[in-house]
C-alpha cells in the first residue's frame, strides 16, 4: 500500500497484467514515443505519461506505437482480441471516437451476438474524457452515454486511483470489449493504492458515503464533488448516500434502487451533455422501478446542452460543480409535496 496517482495506478495495473499474461499487449499513438526518431526511446509514454515505462520492460513487440489511424489500429485491436491477444488500445481522447467508432460498436461490440456466441473479444480501449483542461470542444467531451447506449460494450469510469487500478485489472481480464474512461484532470489525484494486483467487479456500485436523506448518484470525476457536498451537508444534518456506479454498463441498478427505497430522494450528477445521458438513464430507471418510494422530484445536475467552451471562465461555468450539486440536494431534501 502506498500513495499513488490515478496515472500511476493505471500504469501499475497495465504492468502487472502484462507480467502475468503474455497475451496482454498495449498500443496507441506515442504510447512509447520516439518511434523512428533520433532521440530518446520511451520519449513520452503516452501524451500524459500513463504508459511510460512499459516499453523498457516489455519491449516494442508488446507496447506498440501506431500511426494516426484510429480506425485501423482500434480495429486491429478488435481483430487481435478475437484471435488470441488481450489488447489494451488507447484512443487518446474519446472525442476522437468519430473516426473509428465503427470498429468499436459494429465490429467488436457485435461479434459475439452476430456470430451466435462464438469466441470472445477481450479488448480494452483506454480513453481520456472530460472537461476542465481548457482543451476546448473537440478534446473535452464525455461521450460515455454513447458507449453505454450500445449493447455489447462495457463501460468503466473509475472515480479515483484505487478504483482505477482495480477496474483496469478487471477490464483486462474481462472477456468482453471494455471502454475504460480516464478523466484527464484526475491523473495527478493521489490516494492509497495496494501494491499487489486486485480486481473490482463490474456492475457493483461503490457507496462512497452513506446517509438516509438523499441518494446522490455521480459518475466519474463527479463522485469527488458529490462526496464533498455530502461531507458538507452532513454537518447541516442532511445525510447523503453517494453512489459511484463504477461501470455504467453493466449498471448496478439494485444498489441505486435500494438506496432510493430508503431515501426517497435522488440527485444524479453527470458531466456528460444532458440529452440521453447517464443522468437521464438513471432517473428513468428510478422513475420506472422505484416510483412509489420517491418523495421528491428527481434532480439532474449536468452541464448545459452546448459544446465545451474554451475560455476558462466559460468552461468553469460549464462543468457541474459542488455548488450545483449542493443546491440540488438541498432542493430535493427540502421538497415537501
Amino acid at each position, binding site marked *: 500500500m502506498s500513495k499513488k496517482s490515478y496515472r500511476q495506478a493505471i500504469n501499475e495495473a497495465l504492468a502487472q497484467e502484462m507480467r502475468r499474461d503474455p*497475451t496482454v*499487449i498495449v498500443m496507441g499513438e506515442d504510447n512509447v514515443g520516439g518511434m523512428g526518431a533520433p532521440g530518446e526511446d520511451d520519449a513520452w509514454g503516452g501524451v500524459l505519461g500513463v504508459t511510460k515505462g512499459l516499453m523498457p520492460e516489455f519491449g516494442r*513487440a*508488446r507496447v*506498440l506505437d*501506431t*500511426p494516426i*489511424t484510429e*480506425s*485501423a*489500429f*482500434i*480495429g*486491429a*485491436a*478488435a*481483430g*487481435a*482480441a*478475437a*484471435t*488470441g*491477444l488481450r*489488447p489494451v488500445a488507447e484512443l487518446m481522447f474519446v472525442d476522437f471516437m468519430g473516426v473509428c467508432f*465503427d*470498429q468499436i460498436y*459494429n*465490429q467488436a461490440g457485435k*461479434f*459475439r*451476438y*452476430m*456470430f*451466435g*456466441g*462464438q*469466441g*470472445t473479444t477481450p479488448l480494452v480501449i483506454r480513453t481520456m474524457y472530460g472537461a476542465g483542461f481548457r482543451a476546448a470542444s473537440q478534446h473535452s467531451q464525455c461521450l460515455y452515454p454513447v458507449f453505454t447506449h450500445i*449493447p*455489447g460494450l*462495457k463501460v468503466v469510469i473509475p472515480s479515483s486511483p484505487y478504483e482505477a487500478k482495480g477496474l483496469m485489472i478487471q477490464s483486462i481480464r*474481462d*472477456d*468482453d470489449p471494455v471502454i475504460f474512461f480516464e478523466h484527464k484532470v484526475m491523473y495527478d489525484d493521489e490516494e492509497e493504492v495496494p501494491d499487489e494486483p486486485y480486481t473490482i467487479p463490474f*456492475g457493483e456500485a461503490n457507496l462512497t458515503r452513506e446517509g438516509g436523506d438523499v441518494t446522490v448518484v455521480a459518475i466519474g470525476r463527479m463522485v469527488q464533488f458529490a462526496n464533498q457536498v455530502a461531507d458538507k451537508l452532513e454537518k447541516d444534518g442532511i445525510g447523503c448516500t453517494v453512489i459511484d456506479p463504477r461501470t455504467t454498463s*453493466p449498471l448496478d441498478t439494485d444498489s441505486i434502487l435500494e438506496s432510493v427505497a430508503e431515501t426517497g430522494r435522488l440527485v444524479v450528477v453527470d458531466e456528460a451533455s444532458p440529452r440521453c445521458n447517464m443522468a437521464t438513464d438513471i432517473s428513468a430507471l428510478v422513475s420506472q422501478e422505484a416510483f412509489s418510494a420517491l418523495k421528491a422530484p428527481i434532480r439532474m445536475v449536468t452541464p448545459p446542452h452546448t459544446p465545451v467552451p474554451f475560455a476558462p471562465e466559460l468552461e468553469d461555468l460549464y462543468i457541474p460543480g459542488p455548488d450545483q450539486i449542493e443546491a440540488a440536494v438541498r432542493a430535493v431534501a427540502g421538497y415537501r409535496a
Partner: protein
Amino acid sequence: MLQLNRDTLVEAFTLMKTIRDFEDRVHTEFATGAIPGFVHLYAGEEASAVGVCLNLNDSDYIASTHRGHGHCIAKGCDVDGMMKEIYGRRDGLCGGKGGSMHIADLAKGMMGANGIVGGGPPLVCGAALSAKTLGTGGVAVAFVGDGGSNQGTTLESYNLAKVWNLPVIFVVEDNGYAETTASAWAVGGSQTKRAEAFGMPGREVDGHDFFDVYEAAQEAVERARAGDGPSLLHVRLGRHYGHFEGDAMAYRAEGEVEALRRDKDCLKAFRTRVTETGLLEPEQLDQIEREVGARIDAAVAGAIGAAAPAAEDLLTDVYASY
C-alpha cells in the same frame, strides 16, 4: 502452369462448384420469398476466394465482406450451417442471429462476413498481429471490393500493415461495380499503384482464372509468412447476379452478364484447362458436380426443415458475461 497436385485440383474444383451451386440455389430460393433480408451473391467470382484460400490453413484468418458466402465456403465453413444461417435457423452457423451478412466461423479462421464496407481490413491487421505476436506462423487476408477500396478504413489498413510489417494480404475483388457505380469511375488512380504508394507490392490478377489467382496468392502468402510484410492483389472479375437479390441491374450493359457467363466463367475455364492438359478427367469433374449438387440440395432441404431460434435466444450472446 503451376505444379498443383490432383488432390488440390479436385479440391479447387469442388470448392468453386460448391460456391456456384450454393449461390445459384440461394438465388432461386430467395425468389420464393423463403430467405429474409439482404443477400449478396458471389457467383462468378469463385476463383478468387478459392484461389486465395487454398493457400491458407486453419491458423490463417480471413475477413470478408457483405458478399461473403464464397469466402466462407473457400475457408472451410460448413455449407449446411451456412444455409441454415441464411434462412435464420437456430442451428445456423451463427444461431440464426447473423444471417447472410454476418456468417463467421472463428474456428476455421473465418472472421466474418461484414455489413460495413471496409469493416474487414482493420480486423485482419489484428489477426496478423496476433499471428506475429504469438508466433503462430499464420497470415491474414482481407477481401474487399472495388467500392470498399475507397473506404478510409481500408486505406489506413494498408499503411498500418506496412508500418507494422504485418503478414497481411489485401485482396481487392474488382467486379466492376459498387452497387451500381462503376469502379472505373469511383476508383481514382489504380489499385496496384495504391499498394506501391503505401510501400507494398501490388499485382493485377485475372479473377476468372483460378491458376492466376492461386499463383499470385501463393507469392503473397509466402512473402507474408516469411516476415516480409503485406501485399495487395487486384483481382478483376465479374458478378453473375445483381448487387443484391432483387436488383434489376439496369446499370449494366445489355448482354454483359450473358457474355460474362459465356466467356469468362471460371469453372468452364478450369475444366478446359485441367482436362486439356490431362490433369483431371471430365468424368471426374462430372462426378464432383453431381456430388456438389446433391450436397447443396441437402443443405437447402435441411435449412427449410430446420427450426427457428427460440425466444430466449434473443437475450443470449450479447456478452460473455454481464
